[in-house]
Every structure is written in C-alpha cells, then in structure tokens.
C-alpha cells in the first residue's frame, strides 16, 4: 500500500481542472503548467526509485482489497514509463509556450494536455483491465480535442477518421473485456492471470488474445491496423505531434506487452507467432513509408511504425534478454521521437513548409539545430554509443539465439534504412545552398531548441550510461518474464 503512485495521475488532473478557470490568462496557465509538470517529474522519479529499491508498489483504491476493488500497480516498467512520460510532457509544454499560438492557448490547450497526461500515466499504472479501458478513453478524449483544436480543414477531416477508428476499437475493447469476464469472472489483471492458468481451456483464450491484439494493435499502430496513423498524426502542430508520436502509440505497445506477458503466456505457439509475424510486417511497411515520402513529417511518422515493430518483435521472442531489449528500446524511442518531432517542428516554423524539396542549406544559419538533429537521427537509428544501440542489440541477439533469423535480420536491415531515411532529411534540408524563407525572422529558434536539445542530451546520456541503467531495465524485464512476481505483489498470497 503506497499512496505515492497515484500522484502522477492526480496532480495533472487537478492542474487541468484548475487551469480551466484561468483560460484567458495565458501567463498564469504557462506557469502553473510548467510547475505542475516539474512536480510530476520529481514525484515519478521518487516513485521509480522506490520501486527499484523496495519492489512493486500497489495501491488499493478506497481500501477495497485486491481483487475486489481497483488496484493501481507500479512495477519497474510502469514507473519508468511514467517517468519518461512526465519528462516528455514537460518538454512539450516548454516548447508549446513559444510555438502553439495564443489562440490555442486561450482555448484550453494546456488543460487538455494535462488531461492527456492523466490518461497516459493512468494507463501505465492501473492494474485493472476495465480501468485500463477508462484511462484509454480519458487519453483518447483529450487526443480528439488536441487533434481538432484550431479547426483547420485538414484537422477537421482527419479528426473524423481518427475518432471513428478509435470509437470502433473502444467498442471492441469493451467486447474483449466482456468475453474475458465471462471466462475468468474477474477484472484484476493479476487475478485474471491466475484464473487463466487454472482454466486451461486454450481455444477461447487464444480467441481472447487475438481480440486484445486487434484492440491494442489499432492504438499501437501495428500492421495492418496502422492505416489511420500517417494521416491523423500529420494534421496537428509539432508539440501535439510529439505528444501523440511519443506517448499514444506507446500506450498501445505497453498494453500488448502487458497482456501478452501477464495473461497469454501459456500457449505461445499460436499467439506469439502471430505477434511476431505482424511485428516483422510492421517494420517492413514502416520502412517502406519512411523511404517513400519526401515530406519530413511523413518520414518521422513512418519511423514511429518501424519502432513499434521492433519493440513488439522483442516482446514476441519472449526471453528475458529480448524483453530487456524491448523495454530499453521502448524508453529510448519515446524520448527520441519526441525530440525529432520537436526538431522538425522548428524546421517547419523556419521554412513554413514540410516538403523536403523546398528546404536546403539550413545549417549555415542554424548550426545548433543542424547538429542536434544529426545526433538525434543517429540515436534513432541506433548508432553506438547513442541510446538506440543497446536495446536493438539485445533484441537482435535474442532473435538469433532463439533461431528467429528472419525477424532479427529484418530488425538489423531496418536500422540501416531508418538511418538512410533520417539522413535524407539532414542532407536535403541542412546541406546545400541556403535559401531565404519568409517566416525566418519570426521563429524563436533559440527558445524552441531548448526542449529537443535536452531530450537529445538524454538520448546521449542514456546511451553512454547503458551500464548504469541496465540493472533498472533488467529489473523491469524480470517482472515481465516472471508474472508470478507481479501476481504475488498484487494479491499478496
């Protein structure tokens, strides 16, 4: 029983509510937002530290003992993801101050961002499958608002499609939970795991696993369910894109990881094979997209899909090493995607276009931007000693050890092509003859560069300090590999 773990959910919620009352006073909104986001970082750091030293922390809401009430569970994976989320949220908020525009700020941009953080942190922390659905909806509802806020034509058009896809996937989620409830008669995730091991009826459990894979796959953008993502993520402005690209799909990936390691790990022959094939196809289709477009937003958006595939390949191999690699890569990817989206946001702010053919020679006037982008691009592809390397290496090695040669080979090749797709932006956009752009002098580049530069610095430190963070990450993977630890911590048996 520990009350600390509810604070990363509670603080943004209260902040969001308070901010609604200061809608027209932008300075107050900015200060409250920044301070609250900073407090959440500190609290989630304390929480991660506590979990690392004392093991899994749980909190039975209203003192209804598990499995009867809703339980919040913070294991190493959850607390690390909550910490990463808070850091990214803070960076996106700082970036928003100078880029999002007064009109959006006056129309509840900051409260909605905080509500989004409530949903994301809640989804990472909850230990109850229906509560997970509720936090998904909190997160989605905020994302609908963030996507449509501003009301330009492209935003309205893409929002309709995005909402439709998500309404259908939410209905499927409810249906999946209903089936699961009829089989196991409980909603607590640890208790579900116990009942499923007792049930032994593998036919219906396989159906459930595939149903959950479809539900979370729609959110996490796996092949062939990613069709909505490139269009929808294209529409909103850069900080919102960073929040979506870094957080929303990763909640889907986290949920797949959680359910496939905690619920459906008995009969891995069919379900995990399916997950693996889909992960490989996800990587391939993401890479094709990243190479096909000359629009910098599209290139980075398709790189989200590649990363989802790499992480899920690590999960589907299901050895302690591959899970460690997947967790390593998950945290790396959240961080670096946020940095990249913020960086291309600056490029768009300077040039007024996202078409690579109309941009060139930026490095002459903006060397800081150019080199930050270069380092972030190398980190994304996983060049040692930067952050993507360790995770990818562990995933690939585990793949070869378990004789999944095709998957491991595809992951390896994908890094090369990801590097090419990002360097294309660097070579095309930063090299060459400088051009004059009409918005050039209005863009507050120095201020905007702070947030992505800090995130890129994190990527460098995360890569250089792999040895230091390894014990923390492997503690997270250990809980995934041994569901008994999780069950024991929640049910206290």
């Amino acid at each position, binding site marked *: 029983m520990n009350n600390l773990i509810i604070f990363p959910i509670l603080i943004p919620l209260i902040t969001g509510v308070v901010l609604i009352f200061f809608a027209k006073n932008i300075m107050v909104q900015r200060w409250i937002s920044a301070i609250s986001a900073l407090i959440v970082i500190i609290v989630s750091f304390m929480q991660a530290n506590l979990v690392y030293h004392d093991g899994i922390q749980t909190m039975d809401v209203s003192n209804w003992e598990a499995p009867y009430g809703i339980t919040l569970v913070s294991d190493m994976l959850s607390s690390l993801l909550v910490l990463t989320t808070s850091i990214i949220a803070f960076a996106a908020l700082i970036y928003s101050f100078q880029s999002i525009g007064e009109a959006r700020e006056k129309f509840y941009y900051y409260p909605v961002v905080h509500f989004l953080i409530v949903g994301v942190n809640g989804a990472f922390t909850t230990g109850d499958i*229906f509560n997970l659905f509720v936090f998904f*909806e909190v997160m989605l509802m905020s994302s609908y608002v963030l996507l449509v806020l501003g009301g330009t034509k492209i935003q309205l058009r893409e929002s*309709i499609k995005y909402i*439709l896809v998500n309404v259908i996937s939410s209905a499927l989620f409810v249906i999946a939970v*209903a089936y699961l409830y009829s089989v196991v008669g409980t909603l607590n995730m640890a208790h579900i795991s116990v009942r499923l091991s007792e049930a032994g009826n593998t036919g219906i459990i396989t159906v459930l696993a595939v149903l959950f894979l479809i539900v979370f796959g729609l959110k996490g953008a796996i092949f062939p369910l990613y069709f909505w993502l490139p269009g929808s993520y*294209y529409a909103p402005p850069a900080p919102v894109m960073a929040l979506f690209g870094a957080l929303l799909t990763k909640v889907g990936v986290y949920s797949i990881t959680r359910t496939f390691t905690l619920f459906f790990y008995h009969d891995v022959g069919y379900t995990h094979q399916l997950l693996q094939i889909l992960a490989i196809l996800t990587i391939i289709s993401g890479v094709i997209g990243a190479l096909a477009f000359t629009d910098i937003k599209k290139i980075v958006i398709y790189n989200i899909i590649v990363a989802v595939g790499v992480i899920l390949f690590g999960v589907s191999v299901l050895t302690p090493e591959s899970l460690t690699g997947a967790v390593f890569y998950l945290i790396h990817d959240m961080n670096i995607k946020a940095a990249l989206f913020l960086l291309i946001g600056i490029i768009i702010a300077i040039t007024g276009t996202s078409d690579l053919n109309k941009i060139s020679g930026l490095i002459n006037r903006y060397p800081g931007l150019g080199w930050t982008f270069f380092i972030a691009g190398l980190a994304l592809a996983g060049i040692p000693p930067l952050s993507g390397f360790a995770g990818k290496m562990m995933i690939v090695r585990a793949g070869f050890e378990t004789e999944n040669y095709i998957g491991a080979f595809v992951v390896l090749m994908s890094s090369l092509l990801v590097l090419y797709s990002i360097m294309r932006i660097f070579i095309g956009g930063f090299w060459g003859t400088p051009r004059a752009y009409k918005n050039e002098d209005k863009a507050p580049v120095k201020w905007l560069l702070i947030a992505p530069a800090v995130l890129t610095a994190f990527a460098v430190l995360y890569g250089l300090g792999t040895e230091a963070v390894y014990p923390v990450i492997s503690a997270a993977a250990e809980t995934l590999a041994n569901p008994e630890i999780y069950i024991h911590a929640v049910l206290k048996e």
Partner: protein
Amino acid sequence: MEILMAFLIGILFMAATYLMLSKSLLRIIIGTGLLSHGAHLLILTMGGLKRGAPPLLGEHAATYVDPLPQALILTAIVISFGVTSFFLVLAYRAYQELGTDNMDRLRGKEGHE
C-alpha cells in the same frame, strides 16, 4: 434468454456495420451508437441473466445477480455518450467548414489543406 440476447446483439452489430459503411457522416455516427449499444448488452449477457434477487446488502437472498457487469455498463454508457456528443458536434462543424458530409468527398489529397 441468452440465445435471444445473442440474436439481438448480432442484429445490432449488423445494423451498426451497415450504417458505418455508408457514406453519410450522420449515418456513421448513428452506427457507432448502435455498436456501443451492442457491446453494452454483450457485457450484460456475459455476466449472466436472471440469476436471482438484486444484489443489495441486508436482503439476504440465496442467489443474487452479479452487480459488476452493470457497473461496467454504466461506465461504458457514460463514456460512449460523451464521445458520441463530441462526434456530433465535430460532424456539424466539419459540415459547416468543409461544406459536405459525404465521406468520399472528405478524403482530401495526402498532406494537403
């Protein structure tokens, strides 16, 4: 009773799918409404129908209905109510701004205003 519910839910899903595949935005929204009704009835059925007295403290019934699915439905209804109303407002705004409610004409060119 369960068989009857299965047919009812099936018909709701069928109608929802048909409506969501049509071109008019309003029909699609009604389709999502029917889809969530079907899902809610499914939870109710999955919890077991007609098993006894209401689950009240102090009633001392020998058998009582599982209260949990009802709590889940209540939550899901509130959420789908909120989402549907947001979707309706968005559809109206999009109709004003874009001048059409036909999904074919809402396609737009990739990455274009």
